[in-house]
């Protein structure tokens, strides 16, 4: 598809609701990224599920892109992550990729794109990130199953690990609810606020 055709397709999908939301975002935008961590000994108490696969390129290739998504671009991104030593947990249903979630064995810093801030992690813990459930497979609890599976598998397979970190947007209600219900320990939040062109970024640690 050419760039012009892609632009026309995007414009056709715009609704007044989306236009209003984007206009509001130009004036005001707020985001909070919440950081949680799970100690390895607690992660080992979760159950692994045999439906999930580890580093399966075949599963990733079974992804059916949503409107406006480029399958090639995603596969290129995912290939690059795997080549860089990152790992992916996947589950397919009926030949389609239903859910995936990524893990990095050791990470000492990362850039939180939602809040435009860099987070430092001196202990270089494992990090789970970028979990996605395809819309047609939602409401089936794949997310908490994969979260528990990935935590358990990471804890069991990365030697010398003490913590597994994860980041959840505060307004990403369902994942946040599950992360907290699974007993992940809240550590701190990173904030971003923009009013027109004036940006503010700050961080708040858990106190007491």
């Amino acid at each position, binding site marked *: 598809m050419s760039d012009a055709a892609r632009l026309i397709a995007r414009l056709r999908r715009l609704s007044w609701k989306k236009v209003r939301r984007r206009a509001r975002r130009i004036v005001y935008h707020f985001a909070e990224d919440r950081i949680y961590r799970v100690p390895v000994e607690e992660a080992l108490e979760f159950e692994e599920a045999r439906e999930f696969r580890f580093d399966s390129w075949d599963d990733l290739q079974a992804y059916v892109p949503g409107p406006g998504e480029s399958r090639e671009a995603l596969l290129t991104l995912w290939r690059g992550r795997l080549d860089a030593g990152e790992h992916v947990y996947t589950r397919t249903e009926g030949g389609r990729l239903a859910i995936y979630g990524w893990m990095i064995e050791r990470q000492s810093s990362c850039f939180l794109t939602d809040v435009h801030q860099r987070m430092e992690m001196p202990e270089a813990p494992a990090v789970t990130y970028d979990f996605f459930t395809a819309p047609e497979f*939602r*409401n089936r609890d794949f997310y*908490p199953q994969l979260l528990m599976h990935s935590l358990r598998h990471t804890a069991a397979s990365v030697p010398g690990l003490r913590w597994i970190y994860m980041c959840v947007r505060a307004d990403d*209600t*369902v994942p946040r609810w599950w992360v907290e*219900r699974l007993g992940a320990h809240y550590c701190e939040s990173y904030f971003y606020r923009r009013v027109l062109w004036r940006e503010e970024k700050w961080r708040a640690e858990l106190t007491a």
Partner: protein
Amino acid sequence: MTPTDQRLQAVFREFFDDDSLQLRDGMTFSDIEGWDSLAHMNLINALEAEFGLKFSVRELMRMKSVGTIRQVLTAKASSHV
């Protein structure tokens, strides 16, 4: 209908704003309008508030239908007696 069933039905009716809702054990997400993952999470919170309980992760993973919610509630209520 047991007192637990009555309270469960009352929570569902209030939550989904439907006074005519008649719960059946086989009912799942697809049988009640508006019962999606976000609503389910809030429904669980409402049930915990109504019954004064906290569900474990293992229980939450089972609670996929009216029947399994009722079973978990009944088992939990009896273990609290």
